[in-house]
């Protein structure tokens, strides 16, 4: 059995304008089966992936945003969103989906998966990662 590594998925692009957001989610979901120490980072335009209320009917693309809500079920519960990226885009945490996970160590208590963090805090987290996947 390999040692557990710290895997970081960095998302910096908005959804739908390019495929990176969706295809990175596909990696994240498959990767969940490998029991590594996973963190997701949403930076720059990547924050738009988590904005609630996507309505893609008019652009005829699949709205994959419900998938983010399922991440908690895959034990992906460390989701960092950069505060500066939100603010630069006129967004706050209230614009984002409320993503949660259930902590089995605390009687399945529901907890928030999203942490809005400063650039410094995000940089520190990034610096500790073993494997960084950029899309």
């Amino acid at each position, binding site marked *: 059995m390999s040692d557990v590594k710290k895997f970081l998925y960095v998302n*910096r692009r908005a959804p739908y304008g390019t495929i990176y957001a969706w295809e990175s989610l596909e990696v994240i979901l498959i990767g969940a089966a490998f029991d590594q120490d996973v963190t997701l980072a949403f930076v720059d335009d990547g924050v738009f992936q988590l904005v609630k209320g996507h309505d893609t009917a008019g652009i005829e693309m699949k709205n994959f945003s419900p998938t983010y809500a399922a991440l908690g079920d895959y034990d992906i519960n460390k989701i960092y969103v*950069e505060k500066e990226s939100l603010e630069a885009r006129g967004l706050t945490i209230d614009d984002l989906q409320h993503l949660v996970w259930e902590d089995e160590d605390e009687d399945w208590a529901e907890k928030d998966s999203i942490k809005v963090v400063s650039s410094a805090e*995000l*940089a520190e987290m*990034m610096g500790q*990662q*073993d494997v960084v996947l*950029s899309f």
Partner: protein
Amino acid sequence: MTMLHTVNKSPFEKDSLTSCLRLSEDGASILLIEDGIIAAIEGAATSDAIKEAMKTKKVYALQEDVNARGVQGKVIDGIEQVDYAGFVKLVTEHDSVQSWV
């Protein structure tokens, strides 16, 4: 742990360099490759930001990409140029790699 960051896009095309500078820790290394080497040019609008970063981080530029773009001789003093062998060496000498694409 020290991380090697690579930036391959021009700072005039995308915000990848800006984000890399903002989100890399003191002591990290930054390697400019492909169009990213444009940020290594002395006198470019990004010079000040790069020189500021150089106070706490080591900045490198991939020589083959500098040459390809005809700006050999214009690289900021203090940015170390490495070739592909040097790139490979940087990867092995750092604990991890983050690519700012």
